[in-house]
């Protein structure tokens, strides 16, 4: 078995393969939770692979909404600290847009002064990605260059060919899985690779057919022309967009417990009014419109300056949850092609 070739996994072999992997790793996969597809620890049974990409992105397993940074225990005025080691985990079914989000976060949390909790999880997570052959309604990954086919960033890449999956390794860890579980895999037929290209091209056309695409360069130029004060009046400041965005990563830190306790890190969002407010009461971005503008500037100007990648991956989740019509479709109609 060589590292560069492609393989075929029969449909009925997927669950047995995951069962084997789950013997040594926590396997996270899209499953139905109360009728909705969500990434969760897989405990056997059916996978929710024929649904739209779950609203809660798998970034949760790299930057959890709430995590313990460390525990402190006091003994006669001195402290001892403990941190949890990262868990060995495999994420199955991660879509190309979310893979792109991971690359963006690598450029922020993995660079300069690396964020150790993130870096630890990144190192101990195996990614089995799934190409998007049936994109969701609000997806515009094609405009953002993040899909529907994945380019790198995975250990294994699957493409659903109907009767089974085309499997391509993207890292030594991926090759190792193919070797260790080789009884489930057979060499792919060259026709399977052509079928993959055909399906991805179809998916790309499907995305275009569903609606105008939003050129990120045009959005960037359009930001200054938006009436942000007016947009601020429509926005409900619920923070829903940030909660579902796989690139949003604002956080807050707080302690719980005296004299022993935990220092927690929780998701936060720059959309909320108190986000930048100082103890003195001074607030550098008091108006909601200003905060919305900052949200878009960060994704389309500042993050690209820092990482070379757009801070929006075209997953469309923010539009799915926006109740105030301040999502990109409403704000940047003119930037649509």
């Amino acid at each position: 078995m060589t590292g560069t070739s492609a393989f075929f996994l029969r449909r009925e072999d997927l669950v047995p393969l995951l069962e084997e992997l789950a013997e040594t790793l926590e396997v996270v996969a899209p499953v139905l939770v109360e009728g909705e597809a969500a990434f969760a620890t897989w405990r056997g049974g059916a996978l929710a692979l024929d649904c739209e990409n779950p609203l809660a992105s798998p970034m949760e397993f790299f930057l959890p909404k709430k995590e313990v940074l460390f525990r402190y225990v006091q003994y006669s005025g001195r402290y001892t600290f403990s941190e949890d080691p990262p868990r060995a985990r495999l994420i199955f079914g991660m879509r190309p847009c979310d893979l792109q989000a991971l690359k963006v976060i690598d450029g922020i949390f993995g660079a300069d002064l690396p964020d150790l909790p993130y870096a630890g999880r990144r190192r101990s997570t195996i990614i089995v990605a799934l190409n998007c052959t049936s994109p969701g309604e609000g997806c515009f990954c094609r405009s953002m260059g993040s899909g529907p086919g994945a380019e790198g960033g995975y250990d294994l890449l699957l493409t659903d060919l109907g009767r089974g999956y085309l499997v391509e390794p993207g890292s030594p860890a991926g090759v190792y899985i193919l070797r260790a579980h080789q009884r489930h895999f057979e060499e792919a037929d060259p026709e399977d690779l052509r079928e993959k290209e055909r399906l991805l091209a179809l998916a790309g056309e499907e995305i275009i057919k569903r609606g105008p695409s939003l050129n990120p360069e045009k959005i960037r130029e359009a930001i200054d022309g938006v009436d942000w004060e007016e947009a601020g009046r429509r926005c409900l400041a619920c923070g829903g967009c940030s909660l579902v965005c796989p690139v949003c990563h604002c956080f807050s830190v707080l302690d719980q417990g005296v004299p022993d306790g935990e220092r927690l890190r929780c998701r936060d969002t720059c959309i909320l009014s108190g986000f930048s407010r100082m103890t003195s009461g001074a607030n550098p971005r008091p108006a909601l419109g200003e905060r919305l503008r900052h949200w878009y500037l960060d994704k389309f100007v500042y993050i690209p300056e820092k990482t070379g990648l757009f801070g929006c991956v075209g997953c469309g989740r923010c539009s799915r949850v926006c109740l105030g019509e301040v999502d990109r479709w409403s704000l940047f109609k003119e930037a649509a092609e």
Partner: protein
Amino acid sequence: MKMDRSKKEADANGGTKIGRAAGAKPESYLPIQAEVVDIDVESSNTYLLSLRPMDEEDELVAVNYSPGQFLMVSVFGLGECPISIASSPTREPLQICVREAGKITQGIMAARVGDVLGIRGPFGNGFPVGSMRGKNVLIAGGGSGFATLRSLINYIADDRRDFRDVTVVYGVRTSQDLYFTSEYGSWQAAKIEVGITVDMMDASWKGNVGLVTSLLADLDPVPGTAALCGPPMMIRAVARDLLGRGFIEPEIYISLERHMKCGVGKCEHCTMGRYHVCTNGPIFSYDVVGDLI
């Protein structure tokens, strides 16, 4: 020897226009423990705390920093907040100046000698002390913003001949709010011109009353490089005044204050446009942030 090394560190750390955290290592969010070894009362609501790292391996933290850098200070159970370093790396101990503002600063001020605080850092770029050498230096502070400038003033005082004319102007609300009053004499002895002013007159005050800019009119500093820290209104007024005197925007350095949760450019609380005040700052030159403050 210590002073020479600190000087080199400080010169190497500070000064990049858009710098990054200097002494900080890639690390987790675990603080080191520092013992409070001394507490001075600077004003009714401000204490100067001297800290000593408890573990030998952390000792360098107490000298490896630049004037203008800050620490994330923890009171376990209450949380962590950014506090600028008030001491100079040329002098031990490491000191922070804390004014009562919220629950964490109250927690820091409730500490007694022998108590333990957590510290992470130093973070931020610091003043460009390397490029300030050989120049006239004007230092202007307002209110509690003076704490970070005291680090720079003592740094300059300890290496005085490397700098040309040095002028300090400092304004506070009332004479009760003045910090570091016992040190003004030593600064003057080091040939640093010191001007102090208060907003509100009281019986014990015999000095100037008025804005910091009124001191500039009196002292008439020669153009060179400037370090500013204080309320935005004061910063704008002083910067405008200095530009009128022939100072240039890239030589006016401003220390900014923002809400922060991480200190390492991740949490996004301190963003100011494209900059993170924690890693790109907190020292910015006026040409970079003039229209943002």
